């Protein structure tokens, strides 16, 4: 039998229904590959072999009974789930000592949707603690390595999910994207990552980081696989008051590169300035040239508030995080360090439970919300956020999509930026503006740079335009080709 771990998610349900292989065989192929190779990558914090095989057997039982798989768009598809999404009965740690032994009593909405669609959840993937980071080095347990070069990071914070897809430990993966945490690792590992419009996917069961920015987001080896996962998780959920009730449009991927003909593609010059690696600039320019040759019109434009995004984000996200993480107090769940009085217990628990970056961000957020500073920092950032969102609204009056680099650099060496927060934060400089504006954005591979490492192209669309954005991304993918799998294995 051919290597099942190279199989696309999109064709999996039909192949299982046709009897080409069983869901159990597919699941075992991924379990075996992960067991053999993940020790050198560290994509997973834990593999749930028993649960995965039980899900696979239930699909096989349906096939054996002669039941249709038509209502199960992810039947047998092997999925990895970031470990900040709650999974009933399966530890959910957020890569933090604070939640090292936490077992959720319920599934996140996105996880419920996966199970209802017939997916096989292989395990929980590594991340920067509480999704705070851009390299997956802030995990309290171990860093994840990039399958393209194991001396480098896979990006973050969804680095475990990105590495799992790139290394073919799973067919698709769920991450979360607050300021680029799915798009940036997708770019650095040569896979596709979509951040939907804010509110498009319920945040129920996603451990909160920055609630006005957090979006549960799909990743895959191809645009088609990513679109499949997106369709399964998007849609209304009454348990999240910010979740949209709008119907979810299906992406039409039948046009291929023809979708690019006549498309107005905005190229904002602020994304191509200082700090962009020559290797990345060259690959992105080549991709834009190819898009233009396919019939699109490239329109250079300016989005002047782009350079305010980093400062805006690093006020708003820590402010929200400092509030959200107040719940970790040793009382209802998670770590508890005993002390003589309540305040002592709170302080000791939070000091021992949180890692350095999480503490830094809590302090930053607490400071910017404190008396005397709240209007100057938090209030100011909320107003600049309006200016950034207006840049996008004005741009989309002139163009259909925007195209930028996803990350200013290719994957960087482990340890290179871990001592300097500002240099780490710059890794997200291209992905922060769409997060602040709430608009959807997808990273697609733009080929390999001269370094032999993947480069990502970010495509950004207006609010609620996921269907069209995925069709455009599919056109670009058809044009540029996929980067394939890294050769390390």
């Amino acid at each position: 039998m051919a290597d099942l771990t190279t199989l696309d998610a999109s064709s999996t349900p039909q192949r299982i229904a046709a009897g080409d292989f069983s869901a159990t065989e597919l699941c075992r192929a991924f379990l075996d590959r992960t067991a053999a190779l993940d020790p050198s990558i560290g994509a997973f914090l834990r593999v749930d072999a028993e649960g995965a095989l039980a899900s696979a057997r239930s699909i096989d039982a349906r096939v054996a009974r002669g039941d249709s798989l038509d209502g199960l768009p992810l039947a047998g598809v092997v999925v990895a789930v970031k470990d900040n999404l709650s999974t009933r009965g399966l530890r959910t740690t957020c890569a933090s000592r604070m939640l090292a032994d936490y077992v959720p009593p319920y599934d996140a909405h996105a996880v419920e949707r996966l199970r209802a669609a017939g997916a096989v959840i292989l395990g929980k993937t590594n991340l920067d603690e509480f999704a705070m980071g851009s390299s997956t080095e802030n995990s309290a347990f171990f860093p994840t390595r990039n399958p393209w070069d194991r001396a480098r990071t896979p990006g973050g914070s969804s680095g475990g999910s990105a590495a799992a897809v790139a290394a073919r430990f799973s067919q698709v993966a769920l991450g979360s994207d607050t300021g680029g945490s799915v798009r940036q690792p997708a770019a650095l590992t040569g896979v596709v990552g979509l951040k939907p419009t804010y509110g498009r996917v319920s945040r129920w069961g996603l451990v909160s980081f920055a609630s006005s920015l957090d979006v549960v987001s799909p990743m895959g080896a191809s645009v088609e696989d990513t679109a499949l996962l997106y369709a399964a998780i998007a849609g209304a959920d009454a348990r999240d008051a910010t979740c949209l009730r709008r119907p979810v449009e299906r992406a039409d991927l039948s046009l291929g590169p023809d979708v690019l003909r006549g498309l107005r593609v905005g190229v904002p010059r602020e994304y191509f300035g200082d700090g962009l690696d020559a290797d990345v600039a060259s690959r992105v320019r080549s991709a834009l040239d190819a898009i233009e040759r396919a019939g699109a019109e490239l329109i250079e434009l300016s989005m002047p508030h782009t350079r305010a995004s980093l400062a805006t984000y690093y006020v708003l996200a820590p402010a929200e995080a400092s509030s959200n993480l107040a719940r970790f107090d040793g009382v209802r769940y998670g770590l508890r360090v005993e002390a003589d009085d309540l305040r002592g217990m709170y302080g000791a628990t939070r000091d021992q439970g949180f890692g350095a970056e999480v503490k830094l961000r809590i302090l930053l957020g607490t400071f910017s919300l404190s008396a005397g500073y709240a209007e100057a920092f938090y209030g100011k950032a909320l107003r600049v956020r309006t200016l950034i969102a207006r840049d996008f609204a004005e741009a989309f009056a002139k163009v259909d999509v925007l195209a930028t680099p996803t990350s200013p650099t290719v994957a960087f060496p482990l340890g290179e930026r871990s001592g300097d927060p500002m240099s780490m934060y710059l890794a997200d400089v291209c992905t922060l503006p769409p997060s602040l504006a709430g608009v959807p954005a997808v990273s697609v591979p733009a080929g390999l740079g001269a370094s032999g490492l993947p480069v990502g192209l970010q495509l950004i669309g207006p609010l609620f335009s996921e269907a069209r954005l995925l069709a455009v991304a599919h056109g670009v993918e058809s044009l540029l080709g996929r980067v394939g799998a890294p050769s390390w294995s």
Partner: protein
Amino acid sequence: MAVDVSPERVRSTAELARLALRDDELAPLAAKLQGILAHVAELDAWDTKAIPPTAHVLDLAMTLRDDVPARGIDRATALSQAARTEQYAFAVPRFVAE
């Protein structure tokens, strides 16, 4: 807004955040916060006097779910992840003087 972040300022902020930092953590954290806040001060360059704040990116009216009774998690499940419980409640150190 330029801010001078001293180790003492870090200590008082940590108390607000209920973080029990050690003395040797204060100066390195002050330096990191100072560096980030120096960058954040660049926001002052933008004139926002006439700009409304964005608390939410979508212009949505608050929606209410249907008023239908639904069962939440039961008490035993709610207590199952707590480090200390007593009878039917979460247990915490004494915080009210007798």
